[in-house]
């Protein structure tokens, strides 16, 4: 029975001890310990989250880079294609132009040749006419003398005419 009866002295001392320990630790130990543990847990959680985020960002950046690269490649191909097309076009255009120029020159030359030819023919005709008149003049003068001599003379004249 004595076992079950609390003694006043121990009651008071235990109460005192508990209160002192409680307030001492509540003021000086528990906040620091609890805060320390929580901070560490938060730091670890944050670090893990950051690592995950960085990883995701890296992956995103990589995919972005790849996309950019692909785009660049496409653009290069496009540019090359365009350049080729431009080149072909320029060459074709140049060819066309050259052809038209050449045709133009040829046409002009032909026109010029024709004009020259016509001029030359006209001159020849005029010369011939003149010669005919000259010859006719001479023939007419000789006819007055000897018929044979006239003919020989004409013949000699004709022979003497050198067409060019």
């Amino acid at each position: 029975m004595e076992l079950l009866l609390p003694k006043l002295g121990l009651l008071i001392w235990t109460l005192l001890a508990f209160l002192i320990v409680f307030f001492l630790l509540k003021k000086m130990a528990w906040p620091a310990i609890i805060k320390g543990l929580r901070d560490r847990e938060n730091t670890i959680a944050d670090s893990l989250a950051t690592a995950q985020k960085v990883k995701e960002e890296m992956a995103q950046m990589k995919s972005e880079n790849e996309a950019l690269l692909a785009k660049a490649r496409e653009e290069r191909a496009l540019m090359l294609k365009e350049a080729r097309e431009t080149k072909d076009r320029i060459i074709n255009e140049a060819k066309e132009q050259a052809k038209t120029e050449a045709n133009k020159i040829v046409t002009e030359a032909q026109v010029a040749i024709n004009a020259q030819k016509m001029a030359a023919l006209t001159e020849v005709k005029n010369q011939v006419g003149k010669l005919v008149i000259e010859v006719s003049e001479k023939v007419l003068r000789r006819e007055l003398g000897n018929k044979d001599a006239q003919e020989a003379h004409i013949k000699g004249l004709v022979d003497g005419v050198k067409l060019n």
Partner: protein
Amino acid sequence: MVVQRFKSFTVAVFSIFSLLFSVPATAQHHEGDTAHHQAGQGAGDHDAKKDKLNVGEVIFEHVLDGHEFHFFGKSLPLPVLLYSPQKGFSSFMSSDFHHGHAVKNGYKILTHENIAEMGLDPKKFKPETIVAVDGAGKIDPSVKVYDFSLTRNVVQMILALTLFVIIMLRIAKRYKSGVGVTSAPKGSQSLLEPVITFVRDEVAKPNLGHKYEKYLPYLLTVFFFILINNIFGLIPGSANVTGNIAFTAVLGLISFIVIMFSTNKHYWGHIFNPPGVPLGVKFILVPVEFLSVFIKPFALIIRLFANMVAGHIIIICLISLIFIFGQLNPIAGWGASPLSIGFTVFIYLIEVLVAFLQAFIFTMLTAVFIGQAFEGEHHDEAHAAHH
């Protein structure tokens, strides 16, 4: 510097204490025998008519509080601090009583012997009680004595708690300086950190929800307060602090106060007007519910007390078995000792488990009761959050 010296001093005192206790601990199976023999013979000398080992007396002497520490058949006196309305305060060492043979400042300590000598009623007067006596050496019933002595339970509790507070303050200092926050914990920090996180994550958080931080310092203090005293109580020869009803009563009382301050309208509503219960049943239910308010902390008190005292009694009984057999026949005593020691070691290991378990159970149940006290509010908030 002063702190350092104080620390060294405390460590020295503690070391001496543990050395004194642990030497009989390791040698208890052999040297302890002789000590007990002496004790047994001493008891035999006094009650010559019985000439028998009074096991009950030995058990209660070990389990109950006392004004001196016993080891190696010697005793270490402790300070006595008394108050009576007539005589005021008086303090002296317990050795001044000369084991109940002398009167000091008009006070006398009762022992088994002088209770018998003075012809007092052993049911009314118990050993280790300090009484006021008149000039003729008779007990003066008019003088009421309040005993605030530093008994062995008090001294051991103070020692245990001093050690505990020093450890905790050191750990706190480490956390403040960043060890264990930005780096890995070291030394005693690593030892106690899992225990602290266990109390936080397994006891406080599941039972108290979002309010756990408010109660965590209290729960941690209760847990370690019980644990350190349980562990110190396991040192052979030490006092049985946690197995004393006064100790557990204080803790239970504090739990009760904390629970009461945590209650809300919802809690009292459930007790005095249980919803959905017919009126007739309410007449039965309400008193039962109301009683449960007090039974809960009372159960805490009895549970811790009974568990700790039972463990100590079993160990003493098993050791005493050797001497009981030894009284019948010395050979029987020797024969019983291996069996007895085997069982003692087994129970001792169980007691180590119980030391942790009871600290955990007390804290856990306190947390559960606090959680129940403001449970309704939590539900309401949860509902409010849902809507």
